[in-house]
């Protein structure tokens, strides 16, 4: 049996978070009524001309700087010519031979904790097309040009990825980066972040690439993984049964879970790229690049290192916490509010908070439990006002808008019992009620200590300080 190696490269389209379009003043806000955000330029009326939105350029440069790319001092907008009803001018303004950003890399972390570098070939600016609407129209197709002219950054990776999981890890990395940089909202449902995957196989050890198929328009991490895995399987089956892979564009059908051919290389458009004579070459000085560099936020890799160094977190915890800028910011605010307790804060943010957010489908930015509230609760754990177990109830109460930790503890009487006399009294009752177990324990069955602790905690309704209970029990039982 031949062993196969998969080769994958991704082209990610990140919609840039500018307020207006890349070549016109129309708004880019999502969800408006069809064609209400398409001005004369977006409609491609006779005589109109594009004017480049400088903010889109700044965003592309930010991305380039964050990924160690070169920023081209001179890049060129080109026209990609093809006919389609949602492409008003009959060409898309893109960059072809000279992209604004090129030759960088990102480091991704794999499931086994290993890291790998993925090369970035280029990232270029282009305009999005409109949308064809098929639903709700009888016998005709509707055209909505609201999206036409929305700025996109197309991020092209080297063919460095070897599995669907690597591809997903890479895509997540870029997703995290663009959100850190505040250049894309990363909303995959609205299509703000999507990718095309180029997939090929080759016998393990072979240097040349196999023929690739391009899977278009994958708009979730799950689809990327499934589509690529399906495509790998399809190609291997095809080749092993004596067929050959043809260069083609394929579509992923998320319902059937398979890819199907859209067009082959022979049917492919000849886009007749040429420099757009309506736009001057894009010149970026090194001063501008430095000015933009100075505005870059701390990036995920640096933040992760800092979290490990400053907070003593494991690489895993630091990686999870810094995966999104909002979560990292939340964590740091909790630590500040708690006056330390970074490990505890990490556990709570990654555990109960993250669970509750997932359960209710919320983003960390709109958590009902603010960092100040969570930090306040952690303080009460560390000063022994409540146990970790009671804290879970306090957290739920805070989540349900019952006030901050102190208010919940007060209202529900959850304050931990630390009075030795009160605990001893409860222990005495438990010992008196369970003579048989006491005898067995004293005969050497140490394991029964847990039983006694449980009984005492139950008697205290969970409020007794577990450490004290342990200590006093041992003393009394051996006495």
């Amino acid at each position, binding site marked *: 049996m031949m062993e196969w190696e998969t080769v994958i490269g991704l082209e990610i389209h990140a919609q840039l978070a500018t307020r207006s379009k890349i070549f016109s003043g129309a708004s880019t806000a999502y969800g408006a009524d069809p064609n209400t955000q398409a001005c*004369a330029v977006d409609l491609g009326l006779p005589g109109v001309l594009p004017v480049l939105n400088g903010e889109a350029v700044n965003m592309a440069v930010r991305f380039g700087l964050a990924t160690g790319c070169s920023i081209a001092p001179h890049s060129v907008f080109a026209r990609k010519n093809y006919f389609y009803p949602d492409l008003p001018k*009959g060409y898309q303004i893109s960059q072809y031979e000279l992209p604004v950003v090129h030759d960088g890399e990102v480091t991704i972390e794999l499931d086994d904790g290993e890291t790998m570098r993925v090369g970035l070939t280029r990232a270029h600016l282009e305009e999005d097309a409109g949308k064809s609407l098929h639903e709700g129209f009888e016998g005709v197709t509707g055209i909505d040009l609201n999206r036409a002219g929305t700025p996109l950054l197309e991020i092209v990776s080297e063919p460095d990825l070897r599995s669907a999981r690597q591809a997903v890890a890479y895509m997540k990395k870029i997703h995290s980066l663009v959100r850190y940089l505040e250049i894309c909202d990363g909303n995959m449902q609205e299509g703000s972040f999507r990718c095309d995957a180029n997939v090929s196989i080759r016998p393990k050890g072979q240097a040349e690439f196999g023929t690739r198929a391009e899977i278009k328009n994958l708009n979730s991490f799950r689809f990327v993984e499934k589509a690529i895995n399906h495509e790998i399987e399809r190609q291997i089956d095809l080749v092993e049964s004596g067929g050959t892979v043809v260069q083609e564009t394929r579509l992923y059908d998320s319902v059937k879970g398979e890819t199907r051919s859209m067009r082959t290389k022979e049917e492919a458009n000849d886009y*007749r790229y040429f420099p757009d004579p*309506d736009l001057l070459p894009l010149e970026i000085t090194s001063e501008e690049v430095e000015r933009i560099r100075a505005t870059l936020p701390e990036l995920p890799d640096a933040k992760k290192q800092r979290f490990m160094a400053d907070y003593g977190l494991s690489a895993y915890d630091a990686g999870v916490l810094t995966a999104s800028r909002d979560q990292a910011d939340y964590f740091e605010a909790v630590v500040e509010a708690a006056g330390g307790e970074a490990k505890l804060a990490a556990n709570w943010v990654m555990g109960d908070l993250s669970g509750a957010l997932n359960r209710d489908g919320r983003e960390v930015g709109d958590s009902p439990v603010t960092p100040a509230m969570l930090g306040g609760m952690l303080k009460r754990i560390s000063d022994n006002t409540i146990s970790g177990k009671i804290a879970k109830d306090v957290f739920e109460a805070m989540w349900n808008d019952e006030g901050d930790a102190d208010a919940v503890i007060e209202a529900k009487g959850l304050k931990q019992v630390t009075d030795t006399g009160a605990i001893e009294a409860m222990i005495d009752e438990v010992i008196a009620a369970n003579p048989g177990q006491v005898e067995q324990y004293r005969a050497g069955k140490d394991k029964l200590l847990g039983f006694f602790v449980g009984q005492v905690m139950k008697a205290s309704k969970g409020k007794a300080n577990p450490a004290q209970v342990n200590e006093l029990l041992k003393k009394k039982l051996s006495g």
Partner: protein
Amino acid sequence: MSIHTSTVAELSTALARGDHSSRELTEAFLQRIQGQGVALNALVTVTAEQALAAADAADRARADGEAGPLTGVPMVHKDIFCTRGVRTSCGSRMLDNFISPYNAHVVDRLSAAGMVCLGKANMDEFAMGSSNETSFYGPVKNPWDTDAVPGGSSGGSAAAVAGGLAPAATGTDTGGSIRQPAALCGITGLKPTYGRVSRYGMIAFASSLDQAGPMARTAEDCALLLEAMAGFDMRDSTCVEREVPRYSQHLATDLNGLTIGLPKEYFGEGLDPTVASAIDAAVTEYRKLGAEFREISLANTHLAVPAYYVIAPAECSSNLSRFDGVRFGHRCDAPKDLEDLYKRSRGEGFGDEVQRRIMVGTYALSAGYYDAYYLKAQQVRRLIRDDFLSAFEDVDLILGPTSPTAAFNIGERSDDPVSMYLSDIYTIAVNLAGLPGISVPAGFAGGRPVGLQLIGNYFDEARLLGAAHAYQQVTDWHTRVPEAFA
């Protein structure tokens, strides 16, 4: 003074003195347009109602003491400029139903200056032509001889001025489309430096070559119009942010010591001898005015037409893709699918010359041909520009014929695209280089006007206009009017 043969400057003075109101002038020109003018087919749309309203507004502005030199002076726009609420056809069936929702920058500028737009001038379809025969609305006639073409593509504009239907007109020049019809109709036409006038709202033919400019009887009138048309517009990225000189205030030019280059390539084979002698006579006039002449070489002149006919069609093939029957313009009846919609809408909407250029341009940009055609043509373009730049190290202006012949007959070249293309042989290189050029009347050949072309360095319109004006102070070719339209 006869209104319809007056210059813009003369009408401006008459308005200022109160000899005429703008309404009177406007009515007089509308009458010409609807009378003798009809035979010329120079206008495709007459906006009488809007014109009279604009004239009244101009008269009120004057009464309020807010009149500028152009306030109340009538004119026509080439139908390539978008005019709000008015059909903007670009001479094409494709846009026969297109009412523009917005004004071109040039339209707004001249309107702000108080000019009264009488209507829209006929033109070669999408500005592709040198004879005005490719218009969907039929050929324009040359007022000097209605068997002759007026030149193109701004043939309607040129014929309107020469025929006394308007004292001035806007034009656009991609390969000679202002200068060549100005020459063939015996008027003055200026193609400014690329980037001097905003292209916003001017329907694109070849974006890297297109430039709007004025057409009128005299250099002085062109100066007045250019002052109003030129200037920075942030909606056109290729428009240059640079101060606009008061051209009309600096017309008086001492030509003593001015050095003019005569490119030997512009006086060779193909130049009609009568045209050549008219240009020789003009050289003599300039010598008398103190100018010195020097023979120069623009060695790559022979490559200008082939390079142009790769670059311009390439750009037009892309620029005209938006005319697809989907959002505006002509749509075929009952398309059976998307491909049918595209093919029939475009097949029916575009005429032969436009289709020919779209096909040539599509071919030139195709994979496998791009390097051999488009890229090579761009290299030639740089060589041509370099030729001019090195010439301008030695001379202040370049002089030659605008067109190798006077106006030819309607139908004479319409079956032979190459002979048609060669009528722009002296004008095309100027567009490839992006330089300003002006054509001024310099005599007649067989009763048809001959144009003299002056070419200047970048943004040297003031010097061009000054030199043209000086010539018009000592000659009267520009004052001649065709007998049938006197």
